[in-house]
């Protein structure tokens, strides 16, 4: 009579024990990932992590582990709200596990301890990480530590509307040779203004549409500073080259004075800019390699190569032709369980495999992060990807990862906007920028 309840108890205990053993093997993990500047063409920034999660689950299954990874994806179409959201979430200890953002955030975010170095979690010598372009890996590092894994690469070319270039006297052969001519320094920023003026004088484009730059602040404007001989950073210290910055400001002030660029261009609606560029309302403009995707897929410029030729940003006085690459990087944020971060790091590693990354590169017209990627049919058979990689990527610079670069950038942009719109003369702007840089950054910036 007494043995039965004891047996019952034992059975129940055994059953509970057995169920906990099963539970111990089953692991449910939620990995959240946020991406900035991610429009409809860039969704693979997030989807790649999801694909990687499926792969990791299968690998775990083979090892006999029941791993379930739920990926929570949050895209932000713009940068402003994304950076606000992320920095504030991180301060509130609510940051996502993975974040895809511009590499320039590494400086301030690592100082604040918001991110942890990915090199603590993955073997950088292993595939596919060892196949990623060395210069991109450097851009993802700060203080000699690899914090992130490049998510994409791009560069920012100058575009010319072919029919108008022909109308002002360029032959097909001239246009074919233009990229090389720009690279060799035979076609300069001064020529850009000249040709833009010619297009307007001939009535091909309306006043203010000859040279049609980016309509908002962005990394693009540092390319012009480089074109005019400026250096952003040297030996870990920011550099403000007064003469080069003066030439840069003067270029935009001249463009406005000549009437080839609108005084009120900055702040114009983005959609309007895209439409005008895609329909040949502008003569010469600059943008990024990913613009190809939007122009062709969203704006209907299907015969892109018949209408557009693209080159490096031409050399200005004192500088050389260049372009800027602004890779996004996958970063791991701090404050999570070690196990979660380890899995997040694994997911980033898998997402960086050429076959997965190429999906993003091709859908969004970004450039590949590894040589192996350019050997995948999807990539190599695409004229844009091939030409843009060859023509631009080898000459690409990047902005420095420096915690104070954002401050420098804000001040530089304020000055550029003031001289562009005529609110101040170029000299006054430069003077004010210098004063503000001195009072704000002190000896963290070399002024020369």
């Amino acid at each position, binding site marked *: 009579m007494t043995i039965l309840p004891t047996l019952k108890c034992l059975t129940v205990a055994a059953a509970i024990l057995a169920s906990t053993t099963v539970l111990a093997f089953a692991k449910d993990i939620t990995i959240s990932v946020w991406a900035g500047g991610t429009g409809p063409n860039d969704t693979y920034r997030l989807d790649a992590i999801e694909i990687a999660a499926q792969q990791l689950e299968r690998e775990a299954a083979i090892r006999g582990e029941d791993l379930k990874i739920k990926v929570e994806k949050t895209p932000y179409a713009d940068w402003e709200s994304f950076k606000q959201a992320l920095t504030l979430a991180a301060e509130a200890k609510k940051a996502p596990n993975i974040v895809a953002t511009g590499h320039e955030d590494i400086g301030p975010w690592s*100082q604040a301890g918001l991110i942890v170095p990915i090199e603590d979690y993955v073997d950088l010598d292993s595939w596919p990480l060892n196949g990623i372009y060395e210069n991109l890996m450097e851009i993802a590092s700060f203080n000699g530590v690899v914090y992130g894994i490049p998510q994409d690469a791009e560069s920012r070319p100058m575009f010319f509307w072919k029919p108008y270039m022909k109308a002002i006297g360029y032959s097909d052969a001239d246009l074919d040779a233009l990229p090389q001519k720009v690279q060799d320094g035979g076609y300069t920023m001064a020529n850009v203004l000249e040709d833009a003026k010619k297009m307007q004088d001939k009535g091909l484009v309306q006043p203010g549409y000859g040279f049609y730059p980016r309509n908002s602040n962005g990394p693009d404007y540092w390319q012009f500073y480089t074109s005019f001989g400026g250096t952003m950073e040297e030996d870990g210290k920011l550099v403000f080259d007064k003469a080069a910055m003066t030439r840069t400001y003067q270029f935009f002030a001249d463009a406005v004075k000549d009437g080839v660029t609108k005084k009120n261009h900055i702040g114009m609606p983005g959609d309007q800019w895209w439409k005008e560029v895609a329909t040949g309302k502008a003569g010469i403009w600059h943008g990024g390699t990913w613009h190809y995707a939007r122009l062709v897929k969203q704006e209907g410029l299907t015969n892109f190569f018949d209408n557009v030729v693209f080159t490096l940003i031409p050399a200005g006085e004192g500088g050389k032709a260049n372009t800027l690459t602004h890779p996004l990087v996958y970063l791991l944020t701090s404050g999570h369980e070690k196990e979660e971060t380890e899995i997040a790091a694994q997911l980033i590693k898998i997402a960086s495999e050429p076959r997965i990354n190429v999906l993003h590169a091709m859908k969004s017209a970004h450039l590949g992060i590894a040589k192996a990627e350019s050997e995948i049919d999807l990539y190599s058979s695409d004229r844009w990807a091939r030409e843009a990689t060859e023509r631009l990527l080898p000459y690409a610079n990047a902005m420095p990862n420096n915690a104070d670069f954002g401050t420098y950038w804000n001040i530089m942009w304020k000055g550029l906007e003031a001289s562009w719109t*005529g609110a101040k003369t170029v000299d006054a702007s430069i003077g004010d920028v210098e004063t503000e840089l001195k009072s704000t950054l002190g000896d963290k910036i070399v002024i020369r």
Partner: protein
Amino acid sequence: MKSSRMLGLIMIAPAAIMILLFFLMPVVLTGVFSMTNMTTATGISGGAYQIAPHSLNDLKSTMPDIAEQMSQPRYTIDETGLKAVEGLGLDAGIATELRAKHMGEVFKTRREAERMIKGLDQGPSTTQVKQISEQFNRSVVNSRFSSRQELFTALDTLGFKLTDAQKDSIAEATYTGWNWTTENFSRIVSSPDMARVLFNTLLYVALVLVLFNTTYAMLLAIWTHYMPAAPATIFRSIWLLPRITPVVIYVLMWKWLAWDTGFISVLMGKFGYPPKNYLLDNAYNAWLFVILINGFIGASMGMLVFSSALKAIPKSQFFASEVDGASRWQQIRYIILPQMRWPILFVTCYQTLSLLASFNEILLSTRGGPGKATEVWSLAAYHTALNNYAGNLEYGLGAAMALVLVVIGIVLSLFYLRIFNYGTLVSRPLIED
């Protein structure tokens, strides 16, 4: 008596707590933030100590030898490390092989050390490699220490003998968090742009207040006063539309009006003018639109206040004046306006403060452009504290700018209360207590 006071305090407690939390705390925190150099990089909740290359650069000028020693990133295979590896509970062969083949080796970087560890016969996994390499880390470069104590304990373990003065300089150079400073205010005073932003703010507040919030609102109130009731109600309702429309949609409608492809461009196109962005064409246009956008919203509030005040004027005064042959203008001048002194002062006071703090319409329409022409103080504070392309938000400076607004607001409030003669308005009734 005493118990009723107590009850009063209890009754008011929830409201008092709300005021403390949502009115006073933000002001106090703004004050605290404004006295710091807080940014995203320094963090809000405090910093750590990190011997990063740039901090070593700073130290090189004052203590070159120590800086040089500290900058040596090295991974050394030594007995301490091997003991620690044995304690990790990994395959015993790993420590044995390391001791036999690699004892005394020094690696400049973690990556080089890990390459060696990966090559061991046991073939440790990536996680194990990371665990093992950590045991041989004999460098403090890039390590984060949560307190000063931890930093110096680590340095002490590595054999650095430091004086107190040296410790202070090292702690200062390696601290990643924020410091107390009054620099924000000197930056505000010395920056050439701040004066311009202040001027913009004064221009904005004065124009919107004078043209719309008071004058135009008064005109609306008087017009509707002399209208028959039904059309007056319809007219007032129409003027309430800008206020009740969600601000994003309201501003978007203005943009549709003023964009290159908008209504004005299309209309002017009929007369042969090329399309242009009228909103941002030049600073004057931008100001015109900013004032109209805000003015149309602001006018409705004044209109309501003035209309109700008008209703309170005894009708007999109007009848009497008409019998005396007064014109409309004379009625306005001698009957209406003198009795509107308090409502006008109230609207002026209230709207000045709300205009000083408001920036959403400007942010949505011109974003402070073109070329910062319409950047007002509150928008500039927002841009500084919450907008930076390179991910480094300047909370400290932004808070200092916001604090300036708080101070201006308090000073103006006190000034207005004095003009209102607040004391007489709330003076104790003579028949109670």
